[in-house]
């Protein structure tokens, strides 16, 4: 998380960074105070966030991370710009290519298509959260062995997607792979290797 003045909270939000740190240390009762305003729209209660920056807490790779962010900031940009978790890549930025794939409560999502404010109640796992230290997961090792990567920019997204796919399809057919891994694009053309990974690898031992 950044600690410099360039990303200090917008004074118009009424909560300074220091205030926010103090408040968030108080505990569970506070979100009720700080929580979004509710309005009724189309017969439903809808949360209104902002305007300006609001305090956001994300549970990422088992840790609670906090920042002051505008409600329009995506989960992807929050991960990359505010928490320096840059494994998920910003490529199409509109839910088409899969390079930003992360797990939200155990399911794959395009982090560019989720707002950070909406991800607050979820358990988020990024590529960085799949490993501990330098050791590779079996799926990661298989990507290396089958050379299922070239420039590597789509690779973390593919890795998260493939890991999740293999957990739900331990013995995939070629047709399963065609359907299950078609949510990610690669420009260098590494699909042949990824297909080999999916056919040959068991994901045991990997974190989820």
């Amino acid at each position, binding site marked *: 998380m950044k600690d410099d003045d360039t990303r200090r909270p917008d004074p118009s939000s009424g909560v300074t960074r220091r205030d926010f740190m103090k408040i968030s240390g108080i505990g569970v009762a506070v979100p009720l105070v700080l929580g979004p305003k509710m309005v009724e729209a189309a017969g439903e209660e809808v949360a209104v966030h902002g305007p300006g920056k609001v305090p956001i807490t994300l549970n990422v790779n088992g840790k609670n991370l906090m920042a002051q962010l505008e409600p329009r900031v995506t989960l992807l940009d929050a991960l990359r710009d505010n928490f320096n978790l840059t494994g998920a890549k910003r490529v199409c930025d509109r839910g088409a290519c899969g390079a930003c794939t992360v797990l939200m409560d155990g399911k794959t999502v395009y982090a560019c298509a989720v707002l950070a404010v909406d991800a607050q109640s979820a358990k988020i796992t990024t590529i960085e959260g799949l490993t501990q230290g330098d050791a590779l997961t079996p799926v990661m090792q298989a990507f290396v062995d089958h050379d299922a990567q070239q420039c590597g920019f789509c690779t973390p997204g593919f890795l998260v997607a493939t890991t999740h796919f293999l957990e739900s399809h331990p013995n995939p057919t070629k047709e399963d792979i065609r359907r299950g891994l078609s949510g990610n694009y690669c420009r260098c053309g590494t*699909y042949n290797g990824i297909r080999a990974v999916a056919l040959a690898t068991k994901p045991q031992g990997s974190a989820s």
Partner: protein
Amino acid sequence: MSEYQWPDPATRPLLGKRISRVDGPAKVSGRAKYTYDYNPNGLLAGKILRCPYAHARITSIDTSAAEKMPGVKAVHVIQGPGTELFWAGDEVVGVAAIDEQAAEDAIRAIKVQYEVLPHFVSDAEPPKNVGINTGPLSQDDFEELEDNQVPDEQVIATINKNGISFHPSEKYLKASQESGVSAKVIQALRAAKYVEGGATRSPYKKTAVQKQGEPDKAFASAASVSEGLYGASCITHCCLETHGMASEWTGEKEMVVHVSTQNVSGMAPQIAEPLGIPAGNIQVLEQYVGGGFGSKWGPDRWGMTTAHLSKAAGGKPVKIMLERAAEQQVAGMRPSGYGRAKIAADKDGKFVAWESTSWGTGGMGGGGTPPLPYIFDIPNQRKQNIAIATNQGSARAWRAPTHPQAAVITMGAIEDLAAKMNMDPVELITRNLELTGKRAGTYRDELPIAAELMEWKKKWHPRGDQTPGPVKRGLGLSMHTWGGRGHNSDCDLTVHPDGSVEIKMGTQDLGTGCRTVIIIVAADTLGIPMENIKLFIGDSRYPVSGGSGGSTTTGGVSASTRRAAVDARERLFAKVAPVLKAKPEELEAVDATVRVKSDPSRSLSWKEACSKLGAMPMTVHGKNPDKSKTPDLTNSGVGGVQMADVSVDIETGIVRMNKMVAVQDCGLIIDLKTAESQVLGALIMGISYALYEEKILDPVTGRMLNPNMEFYRLAGISDIGEMKVHMMTGKDYDERGVIGLAEPPVISPGAAISNAVANAIGVRVPFLPLTPDRVLAALQGGRS
């Protein structure tokens, strides 16, 4: 005498083996840091306001509101009032702010007014009379007609009809006559009426007609003639990591730059010159790059904008990475290339004549001229190319510039001729291999291997799958060539007394396996494990190594590394020889030991040997080329054959890949695993541009209609079918030295797939991508 020559096959512990790329673990774990990921404290986010019109002049710019907005740290006008802009998406104003949201808001607060000008974005077949303007001829127009060898009668008729918009002086007329303009034309110029204006410049630029032999005679006497329309649309590079740069002024005239580039060593001079600071004061850094494919050579206008914004913001780092829409519009495209081509063969099936008119666009600069006819030097030819200037972001080199287009046109024409002759195209091509010159032997080796892997003899049928049902299956093939000689490369190799080795080189790894190749060559030469070698690349402070383009990197970096490693080994042998009581030339470095060749029991471990260097490490310098250290370790000229097997649903027009086969030569292979990956990747990229990719411009607005990744469609994992790659190795191949591999295998897929579709459905679908609408249109045309 040192032995720089590549070692014999028997003594190559690592060269040519299947070795996993050394940076694989960093990439799969998300630890690899790209320019896009550069995220230091205090980083300012840069954004660019772009022109929404395909052709316009800026009349006013008002940035005052943006400058006052909270969080905005700098505003830089990139192109000011009065500037004429030639494509939608061109850069107008840059902003740096504390985060992207603040920068986006500031961009929206800038007011720019434009005078909208007429645009032209069509690369459809040029009208018959192009080159003949309707308005008065300017001096340029006139010279263009002459350069293009337009017949005198036509030129005179145009001058008489339209007049001229310049005043030719006597001196000019004399010079023209001396340069070959005929007296009749000079006379017409003298008599021409002067007409004000001449602003109606044609977007079409014709090359001179190129003629070889007697094409008319040869066509007249040929046994078979086939004529057709072929081509490939404009596509984009669509690098997954968009173009971008981060600049930080670390002193009055000093900068550190992080940039997504294929050209680490060549970048600083391009940044320094417009800023007026010494190139040596700029450090350029890049560890990983998310794709380039020919499009990332310079700092570009957005990169220079980060330098200006950083300066205005007191030197703080400013990063601009293009949004996807901008990337697709302005950061790189491959020119379209279409052609009407006619080919003829004699009764023995020997090609005797070729005629083509080709055209295409590469943006305002037109497009390149495809080398037609591709590969085959047909004895009698006539050809002409028309480059079309269109209002769109300029073309950039795209893997194997002009070759894929030339292959689609030529190999399509050959396949059509074979169909007309009711002949198997493999047979027709085989009969004409001598026309391919130097690579004939390579193709002769490769064709049967490809045919075997494809089961061509079993699966091929004459044009038009006659089996019942809507799904038709077909086979097609194509062939290609490329140079690929290693570029200039320098490196420093240091051996430490503890046995560790480090190499420094100002190169970059685009995902081709460049890091892996360098370490393999050094480890193979020094006889030590790859883990003993620490490689440093991606920094302009390291010895200069060429940009990665044209398949030149592998040859260049492997040759400089080999020479450095051989010299280091020789100098180490000189230190160690007295200890082993041998002469230096009697020693060898294998299995992490230095030992006497004739008596391996007299040996030192690599570590012990290095300790004889004394207290100080030893650095040697390697170069490519280096005439003092022969032989040449790299070479030029490869051949490849590819075959495609497709199914086409004639009710929906959808094309599906069943299988692709690639047989490829690239001289001495250093890492078989990454080499095969390169070919597999090229096949997939080829399937992508053959079936899906097209940069679509709206004729009404001049804007790109699909500047994104849902409608600019790449092939996915479900689109590729089965793939088989065979690399040519062994005698006649290894001994040629190292040759680059990035361009050649991406040339043929479009042509091979187009031919397979024609074989399946019985008619030619002229242009790539072979989308359902095009397939259905061709089927209707074929039936009517």
